[in-house]
């Protein structure tokens, strides 16, 4: 390869190499900058930064736990709500819907993914929050009020509203990845099940078994999106640094904290704390995305072996 001669090709190769290398440089630069700028709080609070429950910038008290909790809890609510819907839609599109119907559904899902985050947030404030305050929350408290999750004052703004908004936002991505994964399952697998006297449901289970790790990858991708989502969640979650078991209580997430507080972070230690919590978010999303890539690689090789079998 390297002995190929013309200057043009050498130039071409160098340009591509620079482009590829720039990605590495950018990631490294971001990481370096974040670590560098969060050194003051890393040195001062150590692990206590991650486990502290109080966030009082005026007293120079910085505990990130409520934000880590809020980020994870809202994302988990989003996943719990979104996974059944996404799987249902994807299975319907691939296994049952006639082509005439599958295409418009796919189009609508892409449309959902294209709606700007701030629009979801506005919808959350003006439609979803009052709906939860006046109907859904009342219903949940009437029938499931004995659960600690559904106690407390109903304002419409809080963890549940945030989780539902996130669920809406990650459903398109999970649905479309799951759809691709299901479509990659060879038809011969479905026929094998049908030929043994499998019902539609049993055949679908065989298909899902083939697609299992790809579906897991899709879910982790959705989780990554939910963890990093900022604008919509900051508009509906209530921005309160507390850890409460009640889903009606306001909470906060890392991304939302950063978005709403960066402007007022004037002193060095406050700034450092925000950057350190940003670093935590960066690492969490990095791990989640790496996990997703691994899972998808695994399903890709899995379906290949089924094909060549």
């Amino acid at each position, binding site marked *: 390869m390297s002995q190929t001669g013309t200057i043009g090709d050498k130039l071409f190769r160098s340009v591509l190499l620079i482009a590829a290398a720039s990605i590495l440089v950018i990631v490294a630069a971001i990481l370096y900058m974040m670590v560098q700028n969060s050194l003051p709080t890393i040195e001062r609070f150590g692990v206590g930064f991650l486990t502290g429950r109080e966030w009082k910038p005026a007293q120079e008290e910085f505990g990130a736990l409520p934000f880590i909790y809020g980020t994870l809890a809202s994302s988990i609510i989003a996943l719990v709500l979104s996974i059944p819907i996404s799987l249902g839609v994807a299975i319907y599109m691939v296994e049952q819907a006639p082509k005439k119907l599958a295409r418009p559904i796919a189009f609508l899902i892409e449309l959902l993914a294209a709606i700007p985050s701030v629009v979801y947030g506005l919808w959350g404030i003006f439609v979803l929050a009052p709906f939860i305050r006046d109907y859904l929350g009342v219903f949940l408290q009437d029938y499931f009020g004995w659960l600690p999750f559904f106690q407390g004052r109903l304002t419409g703004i809080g963890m549940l509203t945030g989780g539902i908004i996130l669920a809406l936002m990650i459903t398109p991505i999970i649905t479309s990845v799951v759809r691709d994964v299901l479509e990659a399952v060879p038809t011969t697998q479905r026929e*094998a099940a049908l030929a043994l006297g499998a019902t539609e449901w049993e055949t679908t289970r065989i298909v899902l*078994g083939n697609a299992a790790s790809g579906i897991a990858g899709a879910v982790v991708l959705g989780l990554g999106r939910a963890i990093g989502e900022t604008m919509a969640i900051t508009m509906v979650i209530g921005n309160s640094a507390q850890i409460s078991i009640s889903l009606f209580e306001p909470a906060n997430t890392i991304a939302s904290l950063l978005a709403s507080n960066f402007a007022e972070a004037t002193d060095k230690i406050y700034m450092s704390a925000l950057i350190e919590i940003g670093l935590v978010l960066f690492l969490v999303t990095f791990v989640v995305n790496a996990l997703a890539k691994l899972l998808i690689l695994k399903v890709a090789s899995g379906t290949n072996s089924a094909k060549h079998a």
Partner: protein
Amino acid sequence: MQSKISISNLDFYYGKTQALFDISMEIPERQVVAFIGPSGCGKSTFLRTLNRMNDTIPIARAEGVVKIDGENIYAPGTDVVALRRKVGMVFQKSNPFPKSIFENVAYGIRINGLHKNKADLQERVEKALRDAALLNEVKDRLNSSAFGLSGGQQQRLCIARALAVQPEVILMDEPASALDPIATQKIEELVVELKKQYSIVIVTHNMQQASRVSDKTAFFMLGKLIEFNPTQKMFTNPDERLTEDYITGRFG
């Protein structure tokens, strides 16, 4: 000889394209019937009408009567799931599930609830593997992945999987076309062995294979059944000029 499947005046369409024309045929019980013919002649399509596997293609449509044990499988209200349990199928490319060898064979038994208990399940799986001439090769690794088997072993695993639900008819769609000669020979021996218990219909591109394994042979061309006769006669003294031309390799 009693006929197991009786097909009369079967037409088949993919959308507006007609793929099978007015096919009538009696498939005898506990014999091997081979379908031969050039690519695209409709022999696979015809095979798949016998367990209604074409139902999975939205634009496909069959007209006519296919009776198995006297019952029209295209009658409204037919239980397709029960039909397919009775009429098993082995495909061109082996398609084991991404499960262990044991679970592949156990699958059909489980979904149809055929086993009484765990020991019975084990017994049924082993019997199916034995009947498919695979047990000796895999008995030490029943719990390892089916994908670790060779191509020929995977195809015999698929046969075992089909046998495990105790079908009465087995449809085979070019079951050996992706296999080497030795693996092919094993499948052929198996087919001859299996006809003691099952009625078998086998689609094949390989005319030697048809002559080796089948009792009767049907020759298809362009969606029409040209000739259906005992294999011996078909390959020595066919009634139709087209059959002779095809068998002697003058075309196709």
